[in-house]
């Protein structure tokens, strides 16, 4: 795994830079704004101390979602900090924090109107989909999918790596194709009942195409990964991901991130499991539990450990 950790290390500074950038080009009076800890709060920071009475008046605020400017959100109260440099806006109902909110404040300095957009960073949102599919909702350990292939190919580390990488490639390609088919053919022509047939057909097609291309272009790679291609089709995850994409109406980038996370999560699960099973081979286990039964018990313990990720929220 060292290569992956290096990739993450290289990726992080770029990410941090991206989040800091909006702060550098901020407008005059309002220096920072974000969603609060609860989902019905917005926190606003001011450049200098403001008149606390003005800032606490709810009539001075207009808040709406960028996509629905006509629907004004009901503001319950505003709490201004002692030094007058920040305020917390409390709303009557929880906000949809995935959407961009526009906050307009009047009379902050006499007779001015200042307007800012509050949103979670979209890149951060995409990243949270990736991490969600990989760890928090790991398809193997918390959704219990793809188990046949999981137990079949986790005996040795080499097989685990080969299967995981092949699977990741196929799932990303097939999920992207499924997204195109769903958005531009199934939905416009009202053919949603054909979802299962179309998605599984696309998966077969991808597997067959990867098989043919790999055989011609790189026979060495084909010898290493060819055997796993057939198994990909018997993996529930490969059909579950397109169905989830269709249900949630994800856009292209979100679909890509979800399928990539699903593949990466499967690779991670396989690698962890194969590391343990290589050691179990040498352990003294009751004969009736040898092989598959003990593997299930180990997988159960992994599932328990992965429950620990459920509290993780990144952005």
């Amino acid at each position, binding site marked *: 795994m060292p290569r992956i950790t290096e990739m993450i290390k290289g990726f992080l500074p770029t990410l941090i830079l991206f989040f800091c950038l909006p702060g550098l080009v901020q407008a005059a009076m309002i220096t920072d704004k974000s969603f609060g800890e609860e989902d019905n709060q917005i926190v606003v920071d001011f450049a200098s101390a403001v008149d606390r009475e003005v800032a606490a008046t709810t009539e001075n605020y207009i808040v709406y979602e960028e996509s629905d400017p006509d629907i004004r959100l009901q503001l319950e109260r505003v709490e201004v900090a002692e030094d007058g440099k920040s305020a917390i806006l409390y709303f009557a109902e929880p906000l949809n924090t995935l959407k961009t909110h526009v906050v307009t404040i009047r009379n902050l300095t006499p007779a001015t109107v200042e307007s800012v957009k509050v949103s979670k960073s979209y890149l951060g949102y995409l990243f949270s989909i990736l991490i969600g599919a990989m760890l928090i909702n790991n398809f193997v350990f*918390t959704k219990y*999918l793809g188990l046949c292939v999981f137990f079949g190919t986790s005996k040795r580390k080499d097989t685990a790596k080969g299967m995981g990488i092949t699977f990741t490639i196929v799932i990303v390609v097939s999920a992207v194709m499924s997204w195109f088919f769903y958005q531009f053919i199934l939905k416009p022509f009202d053919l949603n009942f054909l979802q*299962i047939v179309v998605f599984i057909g696309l998966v077969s097609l991808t597997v067959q195409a990867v098989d043919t291309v790999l055989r011609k272009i790189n026979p060495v790679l084909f010898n290493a990964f060819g055997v796993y291609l057939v198994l990909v089709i018997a993996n529930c995850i490969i059909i579950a991901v397109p169905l989830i994409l269709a249900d949630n109406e994800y856009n292209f980038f979100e679909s890509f991130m979800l399928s990539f996370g699903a593949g990466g999560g499967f690779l991670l699960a396989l690698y962890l499991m194969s590391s343990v099973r290589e050691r179990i081979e040498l352990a003294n286990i009751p004969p009736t539990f040898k092989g598959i039964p003990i593997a*299930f018990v180990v997988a159960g313990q992994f599932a328990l450990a992965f429950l620990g990720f459920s509290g993780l929220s990144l952005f």
Partner: protein
Amino acid sequence: MATDKSSFQLVINGILNENPIFRLVLSMCPAVGISTTVMNGLMLGIAVLFVQVFSSVTIAIFKNVIHPRIRIPTYTLTIATWVTVIDMVLAAYLPEAYAKMGIFVKLIVAFAIITMRLEMFASKESVDASFWDGIGMGLGFMAGMVALGFVRELLGLGTLLGYDVLGFQPLLFFVLPFAGFFVVGLMMGFFNYIEVVYKRSKARQA
């Protein structure tokens, strides 16, 4: 090339000797994911039985016109068609049970057991034998699911099919989702143990 087994033997073979869950270790996703109650197991068992029987019969009828090189995609599309049928039927007539099973009904299309039986059995045998083999495999899957559901519901909730049997909840642990792994592993070990004991007693008699 026809099998010499009678229809009864084929059904028993699916339930005991080649039980999909405990013997072939195929289609484990639902066995772990939604075997929390007997009812769930029964419902998904019925769906799988339907898909298995109809796919087996379809392939057995058309086996002579399917080119060997495209047989796997053909099987997949056949299964997908029958899964779509049962998916829509369940959604229309049993919406409550359907909501509980969630995505798993649609995922029957990727269950290894069905493709494997088409490849190993239905593509070689007669329509009649394939029908009974499908029944056997479907019932075997259902039996496995119900057995798991029985253990988990009884030990976790103290109920069976929703009726209160024990009057208290012994171990809530068993109905929690991840416990599926432990229950499947322990039950497999238990069945292996019974087999060992059975063989030993037989050897002693002989």
